[in-house]
């Protein structure tokens, strides 16, 4: 038994494969955070006054929070205090002008993407995926825009949206996650440097999956991107975000905000495959991933669906949530979170039922290996007017080895007696008997572990778009490779 556990541990010792650093000229602000820096960020981006004002309000609010030491401490994660004045809040690859095609992109950047396995080139276009790549906060290449424009879909960097569609940005920015929401969201509101923007007009079904890759390259910069997705009445859109970061000894802060708005009969499906650098085997380095993601199912019969596969980051603090405001609206959260070595994850969701006959589904699969600590924290809130609300929550944990931990904190608040709630939870260890059974049929130990874990995560993987499900499966087995002989 114990030797199997040891071998599983070995398998989990696989090293980070995306840890190369790209050396490109960058344009960055000196470390520190104050009103000057906030203004400088806005100036570098040539932002209109309303944005500058919004950032400053956020900054002032954040400064007051920081003074009160109001950084959240309730999450089940441990890390030394972050020196926010030591970080640089803006870093962009230096480029002379706006880019019209991929040929104009710095070949080193493209090389980085190809190492990441992101086919920014023809294949991806043929595959029908439009990629908006965010490299240290500035969007460097947006593809397939023309085809999207034909049907009226706007898919661009946040900066471009501010320039070209200020009325949409003004209307929706902060409407789901206000700048006062929480410490990290407030910080993001003050300093965010770029991100993605999507608007799908009335009745349009977005003709392809929209995909963004984020990558943190520069040292000592936090990445603060912001994503805003709006699906107008009857619109459908599926969006995928993938993330990686190079190996650094220092911890890097990533405090992103994602806001989704679905109007009547609209559907937004948001999928994340997160593979930020998790730190080394001793727990040195790695990304602090403190992210606020929230969707508002504003209209009747609207639907917001979050699917996430979280295998990276030293610390993950993240609760993609749904505000189910429209009658008959639907919220979903499907999550796989893996913690290995010294990774910590405190993740889950909030489902806030406001409208009548609103329905939410939560499926969370936590996998812990090494010394990893995995916490599910979920809240289901049924407000007074939410007659006929329903929630189903399933929360499973899988342990590999005996030094890791799984924790579950479900909070339920019901103010309407007609609500129906179902909750299922389980914790299991990956069984030596399961591994042996598969081996006895000719399957290697590594394959066996990978198969068992994929089986465990199946309910989540089947929610991912096909090609990303394959990617997620690979990522999971790579993250656990070496954990078996």
């Amino acid at each position, binding site marked *: *038994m114990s*030797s*199997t556990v040891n071998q599983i541990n070995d398998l989990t010792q696989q090293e980070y494969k995306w840890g190369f650093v790209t050396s490109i000229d960058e344009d960055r602000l000196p470390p520190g955070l104050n009103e000057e820096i906030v203004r400088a960020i806005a100036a570098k981006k040539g932002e209109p006054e309303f944005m500058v004002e919004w950032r400053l309000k956020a900054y002032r609010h954040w400064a007051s929070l920081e003074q009160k030491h109001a950084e959240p401490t309730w999450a089940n994660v441990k890390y030394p205090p972050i020196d926010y004045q030591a970080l640089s809040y803006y870093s962009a690859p230096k480029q002379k002008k706006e880019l019209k095609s991929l040929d104009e992109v710095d070949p080193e950047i493209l090389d980085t993407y190809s190492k990441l396995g992101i086919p920014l080139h023809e294949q991806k276009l043929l595959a029908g995926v439009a990629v908006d790549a965010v490299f240290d906060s500035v969007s460097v290449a947006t593809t397939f825009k023309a085809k999207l424009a034909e049907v009226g879909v706007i898919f661009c960097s946040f900066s471009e949206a501010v320039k070209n569609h200020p009325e949409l940005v003004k209307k929706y920015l902060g409407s789901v996650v206000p700048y006062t929401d929480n410490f990290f969201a407030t910080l993001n509101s003050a300093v965010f440097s770029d991100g993605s923007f999507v608007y799908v007009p009335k009745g349009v079904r977005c003709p392809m999956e929209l995909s963004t890759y984020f990558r943190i390259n520069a040292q000592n910069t936090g990445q603060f991107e912001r994503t805003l997705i709006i699906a107008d009445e009857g619109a459908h859109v599926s969006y995928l975000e993938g993330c990686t970061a190079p190996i650094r000894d220092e911890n890097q802060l990533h405090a992103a905000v994602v806001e989704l708005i679905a109007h009547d009969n609209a559907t937004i499906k948001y999928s994340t495959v997160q593979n930020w650098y998790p730190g080394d085997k001793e727990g040195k380095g790695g990304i602090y991933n403190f992210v606020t993601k929230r969707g508002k199912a504003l209209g009747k019969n609207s639907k917001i669906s979050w699917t996430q596969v979280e295998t990276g980051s030293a610390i993950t603090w993240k609760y993609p949530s749904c505000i189910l405001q429209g009658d008959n609206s639907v919220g979903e959260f499907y999550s796989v979170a893996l913690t290995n070595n010294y990774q910590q994850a405190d993740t889950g969701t909030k489902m806030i039922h406001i409208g009548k006959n609103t329905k939410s589904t939560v499926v969370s699969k936590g996998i812990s290996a090494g010394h990893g600590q995995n916490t599910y924290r979920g809240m289901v809130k049924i407000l007074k007017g939410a007659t006929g609300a329903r929630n189903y929550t399933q929360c499973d944990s899988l342990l590999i080895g005996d030094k890791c931990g799984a924790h579950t904190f479900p909070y339920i608040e019901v103010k309407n007696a007609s609500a129906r709630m179902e909750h299922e939870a389980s914790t299991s260890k990956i*069984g*030596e*008997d*399961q591994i*042996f*059974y*598969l*081996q*006895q*049929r*000719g*399957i*290697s*130990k590594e*394959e066996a572990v990978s*198969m*068992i874990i*994929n*089986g*465990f*995560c*199946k*309910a989540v993987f089947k929610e991912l778009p096909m090609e990303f499900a394959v990617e997620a499966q690979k990522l999971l087995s790579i993250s656990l490779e070496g954990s078996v002989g």
Partner: protein
Amino acid sequence: MSLLEIKNLHASVNGNEILKGIDLTVNPGEVHSIMGPNGSGKSTLAQVLARRESYEVTGGSITFDGKDLLEMKPEDAACEGLFMAFQYPVEIPGISNAYFLRAALNAIRKYRGQDEMDAMDFLPLLKEKMRMLEMDERFLNRPVNEGFSGGEKKRNEIVQMAVLEPKLAVLDETDSGLDIDALKIVAKGVNAMRDKKRSMVLVTHYQRLLDYIVPDFVHVLVNGRIVKSGGPELALELEQKGYSWTEPELVGKR
């Protein structure tokens, strides 16, 4: 040349010696039955043959198809053609029977330098074997053994054996938990696989199975040793007299 040659095998579990010197030779095409009371070490022998690592071999040797079995990992033994039908088949949630079995078959084919079989070729093969074991097609997509009844699990083991076509099949108490109809179905499946080359070791507690799958040899395992060997008639004798007569010293001690 014999397919399996076990010489003076000693094995321990958690430091307790369970097998205390087993000798057994199985030639191609032979069916051997190992019988014995509960706790005598039958499953231990099966697990050792399948190379489960928690079963420690402390002495002796096992040669399988001319190779040293004790040098092999469990998956290598499987790829070399050793199959064990589990006494307690394991559930693998989220992985369909069809997916699992194709992965297994392809792992074995790859080991042998054969091309992988795609789903188009594999499915008809699997369906045919399932029909033979009278298993409904809905078991194709059900997760491996999950929620299967005891009998369904056992039949599923034989389906796997039929697909993987081993050189040596070790069936551990495949009859236990089966009603008479299911037993007949399983026996039919097993008998259909008997041929001049394939060998089998049937581990069983009851003589009942041997009415349907008639072995060439019967061995009686008591307290980690084979105390008696004979032909099929030995099984009947055991049925009538119980196990105690086979080991006079034991009887004397009681």
